[in-house]
């Protein structure tokens, strides 16, 4: 479909969904998917909002007159105000909350993105392999998953931080190390039902090797489940980071993240509610956007949804 049809959609959604059916031929799967994605207005709005948040977090701090660790004794615990240039207010050390929220967003978004990528990659590969291989391989792989459940992640986190020192990538690694096991279980269950489908037999009958069957035929069919589960994983990872940080295992003062700011703001919400409200708002907005986008992606890549 051309750009013009997408534009007319804002004016008349019905007309576009009808015209989208006129020529289902000659479209690449990617364009097919994009057209369906573009029909989901909530997802488009979410993309814009998420884009703005990302832009603000990575560019915003340069444009503001304050550093994220600049303390100002003359402006301690100021409420939000347009007049005094502290739009989001300040904390009890006089640091500007706006710049701290944006800087914290960098950490949270990076942890969320990298952690989720690792979680999905490991979880899908592990679960699909175990499910498709079946038998002893499956049993062995899933017992490892069970063992992971039994290990308290906090213990490993503390161990890693003391052994290797405190580093951003270690936080991501530790979180991913434990969040992939849920994904692996979900994916394995789905793979077990998928591999009994006839098209898998048909693929085997055409001589497709096992590894390729998993990659080409199982994984695309897992998309719906994986995307939905991913949208649940993103907030989980961002919040886990804040727990680690709260215990002194994640980012350290004066560096911050949304999780840290929220944990901090929660303890002061009765006297200085803005300390909770603004970082919370950013986190909630991000999570909503990823959920809507995830929903739209699942629909867009499922060829049966029109």
């Amino acid at each position, binding site marked *: 479909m051309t750009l013009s049809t997408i534009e007319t959609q804002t004016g008349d959604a019905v007309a576009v969904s009808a015209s989208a059916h006129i020529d*289902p*031929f*000659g*479209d*690449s*799967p990617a364009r097919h998917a994009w057209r369906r994605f573009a029909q989901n207005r909530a997802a488009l709005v979410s993309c814009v909002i998420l884009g703005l948040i990302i832009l603000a977090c990575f560019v915003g701090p340069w444009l503001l007159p304050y550093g994220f660790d600049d303390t100002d004794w003359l402006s301690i615990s100021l409420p939000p105000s347009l007049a005094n240039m502290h739009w989001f207010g300040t904390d009890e050390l006089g640091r500007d909350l706006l710049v701290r929220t944006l800087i914290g967003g960098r950490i949270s978004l990076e942890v969320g993105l990298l952690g989720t990528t690792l979680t999905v990659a490991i979880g899908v590969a592990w679960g699909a392999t175990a499910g498709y291989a*079946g*038998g002893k391989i499956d049993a062995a792989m899933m017992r490892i998953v069970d063992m992971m459940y039994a290990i308290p992640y906090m213990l490993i986190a503390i161990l890693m931080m003391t052994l290797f020192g405190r580093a951003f990538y270690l936080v991501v690694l530790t979180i991913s190390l434990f969040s992939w096991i849920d994904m692996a279980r979900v994916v394995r269950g789905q793979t077990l039902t998928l591999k009994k*489908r*006839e*098209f898998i*037999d*048909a*693929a*085997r*009958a*055409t*001589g*497709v*090797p*096992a590894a*390729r069957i998993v990659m*080409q*035929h199982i994984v*695309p*069919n897992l*998309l719906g489940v994986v995307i939905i589960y991913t949208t649940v994983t993103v907030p989980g990872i961002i919040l886990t980071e804040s727990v680690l940080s709260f215990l002194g295992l994640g980012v350290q003062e004066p560096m911050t993240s949304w999780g840290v700011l929220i944990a901090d703001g929660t303890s002061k919400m009765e006297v200085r509610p803005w300390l909770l409200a603004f970082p919370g708002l950013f986190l909630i907005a991000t999570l909503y956007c990823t959920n809507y986008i995830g929903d739209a992606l699942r629909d867009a*890549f*499922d*060829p*049966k949804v029109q």
Partner: protein
Amino acid sequence: MSGTTMNPTSPLIEVEHLAVRFTTPNGGVVEAVRDVSFTLHKGKTLGIVGESGSGKSQTALAMMGLLPPNGAVSGVARYDGRDLLGMKHAELNRIRGDRVAMIFQDPMTALNPFLTIERQMTEVLQLHRKISRKQAFEQAVAMCEAVRIADARRRIKMYPHEFSGGMLQRVMIAMALLCEPDVLIADEPTTALDVTVQAQIIELLRDLQSDLGTAIILITHDMGVVASLCDDVMVMYGGRTMEYGTAEQIFSQPTHPYTIGLLDALPHLDDDGDVPLRAIAGNPPSAGGAVHGCAFAPRCAMAEEQCASVRPELLAFTDTDGGQRQRACHLPIAELRPGVRVGGAV
């Protein structure tokens, strides 16, 4: 072997004493296929007929190495002299899809719903031929046109759910024939389709066979399909071969009560509407229990005492027309029910 189709060259497919057994979770053993042997020569069609549960599909799946993990196979299934059953996976993968291809019963479920037809077709070609994506695409389009899919160049980019059942079976056939295999195993290719489409698919298979010289193993329970397509026919019941001969022999002179029953059960054009169809009484045996005598004996109208206790061997004999064929029945041919109508079956 039977030698029912006389051909001086060595057979393309030789199956000897093939047996398939499944172990059930509670430790039981189910023998789905017992001691099945047949041969298939280049360009010929073998029909394997029988009711549901007679072991015909399992025979095909075993040959293709597609049995589930609890299934075990014994015997020999040679393609071009090489035993498919004892082969390493990598070697088998080079043969299946390339030299021996398979069509499944329900085209709606046998194609990956998440991939376009193009992806699925080019995958087969790229696996077995060292060609570029573009060349593979062109060949896939050409094959789609050969199976008479109109507007193939554009429709090939669509997803399976955007096709009708009949069109999808054409796609399946096109996929199976992409590498121009020597042998095509068609497992009830028309069962999931409606009658008018069935006729088109059968016609298509026949045309393609004469163009490409592919040998076909056609698994079906539709005697009409067998009559219109097959050179040889093997009738299976309870996992065993009941009768094996040329289509001509089987249809004009069936020598096994089960074959007679199958042919008798066909509706005839000259029947009045109020004549009930003649079904074979009873149900097929459950595959679990051990069978001592003839598997068909409990349902056979002509069964004698020994039928229930002594299993008839599959024996070669020469019929009245001088043709070589095989049957597994204690009863002398002359004693079989006279006046059986088979002429109208075709």
